[in-house]
């Protein structure tokens, strides 16, 4: 178990700057997820910590010890790769035991450790098989077993579930969560899958284009996105984003959406300036067909005509327009009776971002 500190990390490959500025501390025993689209620098950051990639500038500390120049094999980290990277010529047992053998442990101790890990991951019947005789999920578990037996300071996961099918991914997610609860080892997990991030993380670090876009708990990043990128990246279906302007009339502030006027909630009024261009963000799930679903009075009502419907099962996606701008609403499938509906927008849940800096205007 250990605390990991990244201090002003940068990484370039020739002229291309992949990680531009990364300052972050992973607390002891924490489960942190690096989340972001492809090419945002999340895997590179992880590989720098692992020692598989050199650091262009900045420092990385594990438990106060500077590890920039420490060889990968001496960093005492265990990593699970996206491709599993099992040694194909070794059996499952040998794969798991390899690191222990290198540590110079006795055969008897190795046996105990391997069987313990195999027991936790239900790999006992597979110990004598070679990787090519295993299914994707089993290989994944062997890779985890290999990392587990080492009892490393930090676990690193580089998109470990992306090669599995959706159902197995759910099962493995659950298993990883249980495992982390049991072992309490500091864990850094890289993924582009927001469901994995939301379900697994104590804290999520959202990266965009080599910078940290936001750090926070899953609830924080979902409910209070710091900028437009995070707002659109987190949540499925994505947040509705509409260009608007702030206006004042007779001492009252409004968000002007073409012909439509929505009263400006109080939490944005500190930042309000006349004619300030903004982006209005509303999650499809924060728009309701029945006013009773919102337990306060800060609601904006708006009658619309539904243009298209997409049934998802229990819920349904409705596509419509407000203020001549496209809007997606997610609601219970049973609530939609006619194509003419009245939308109730929960004003406590809307988001406003500055049009140029894209930062949240909420105070």
């Amino acid at each position, binding site marked *: 178990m250990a605390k990991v500190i990244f201090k002003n990390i940068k990484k370039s490959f020739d002229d291309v700057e992949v990680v531009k500025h990364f300052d972050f501390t992973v607390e002891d025993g924490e489960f942190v997820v690096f989340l972001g689209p492809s090419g945002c620098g999340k895997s590179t950051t992880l590989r720098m910590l692992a020692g598989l990639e050199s650091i262009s500038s900045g420092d990385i500390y594990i438990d106060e010890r500077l590890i920039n120049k420490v060889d990968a*094999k001496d960093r005492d980290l265990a990593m699970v790769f996206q*491709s*599993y*990277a*099992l040694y194909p010529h070794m059996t499952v047992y040998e794969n798991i035991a390899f690191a222990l053998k290198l540590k110079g442990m006795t055969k008897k101790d190795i046996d105990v450790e391997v069987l313990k890990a195999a027991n936790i991951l239900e790999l006992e019947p597979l110990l004598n098989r*070679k990787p090519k005789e295993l299914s994707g999920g089993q290989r994944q578990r062997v890779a985890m077993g290999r990392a587990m037996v080492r009892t490393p300071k930090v676990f690193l996961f580089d998109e470990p579930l992306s090669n599995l099918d959706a159902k197995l991914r759910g099962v493995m997610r659950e298993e990883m969560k249980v495992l982390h609860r049991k072992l309490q080892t500091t864990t850094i997990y890289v993924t582009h899958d927001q469901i994995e991030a939301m379900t697994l993380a104590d804290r999520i670090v959202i990266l965009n284009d080599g910078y940290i876009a936001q750090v926070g708990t899953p609830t924080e990043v979902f409910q209070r996105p710091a900028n437009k990128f995070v707002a659109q990246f987190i949540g499925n279906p994505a947040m509705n984003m509409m260009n608007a302007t702030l206006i004042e009339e007779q001492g009252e502030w409004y968000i002007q959406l073409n012909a439509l006027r929505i009263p400006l909630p109080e939490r944005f009024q500190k930042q309000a300036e006349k004619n300030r261009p903004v982006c209005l963000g509303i999650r499809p799930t924060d728009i309701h067909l029945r006013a009773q679903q919102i337990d306060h009075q800060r609601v904006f009502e708006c009658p619309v005509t539904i243009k298209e419907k997409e049934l998802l099962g229990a819920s349904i996606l409705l596509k419509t327009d407000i203020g001549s701008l496209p809007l997606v609403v997610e609601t219970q499938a049973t609530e939609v009776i006619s194509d003419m509906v009245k939308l109730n927008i929960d004003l406590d849940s809307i988001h406003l971002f500055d049009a140029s800096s894209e930062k949240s205007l909420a105070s």
Partner: protein
Amino acid sequence: MKTLAFLKPSQEVTTFLTKAAMVLLATVLILSAILTVFPFIWSAILSTRDRSEIFSTTISFALGDSLAINYQRLLEIMPFWQAMFNSIYVAFVGTTISLLFCSMGGYAFAVFKFKGKSFLFAMLVGSMMIPPVLSLIPYFLIVQFLGLLDNHIAVWLPFTTTPFGIFLIRQHVVSSIPKELLEAAKLDGAGEFRTYWSVVLPLMKPALATLAIVQFVFFWNMFMQPLVVLNSPDQYVITQALRSVQGIPNTPWGSVMLGTTISLLPILITYVCASKQMISGLTSGAVKG
């Protein structure tokens, strides 16, 4: 298009042409195989005949009855088994060490980053273009300088690091050994040598088997180099020993043919053993395919 439809051959014609092509191909292949194998079979047949039978004008494929006499004569005219042993020794040691050196070199070129790597690799590949005969005199001078004349080390050591071998292994590592495996080994705590020895080497088997056959045949067939550096008959390798008796009066050709036939056996055995290993696909299952 309609007007050209009559040009399209019918189903029967296509089938017939395909069959005819297959028969032609098979004939060419069978003829080539016979042409390749015939000299070996002929030398095996000749090794059972005496001199007069060998030089008779009629062509016959019948086995003669002089095998025992030829064998005895073979042992009289040259230290045959000593030469065989020398050849086996040179080929075995040379092949083993070249597998080690070439796999290390190829692995280094494939994985490590160092200054001048491309230049060195280009030099290495370029050196394959130099005809071996051209380096014969420098080779002799170096061996003489090292004081290795008339020593078997001079025959195998200089040829253990071959550009072809390094190139072959490098290509194999680049194309069939995933980078993640090396990284996983590193994180498991393996140093450079341990990664090479425990992870990479076992996965190189198909390439090593190919290289083993190539090198074994090379060392076994070696003639010019031993001829230049080995002088005493008890140091001779088999090619040299068989050649050395061709100058004596009334060369006992039956014996020479017998020696040649026996000398083919180690190569055959090597091929049979290593060809099984050549089947690749050993890395399947390493990473998600």
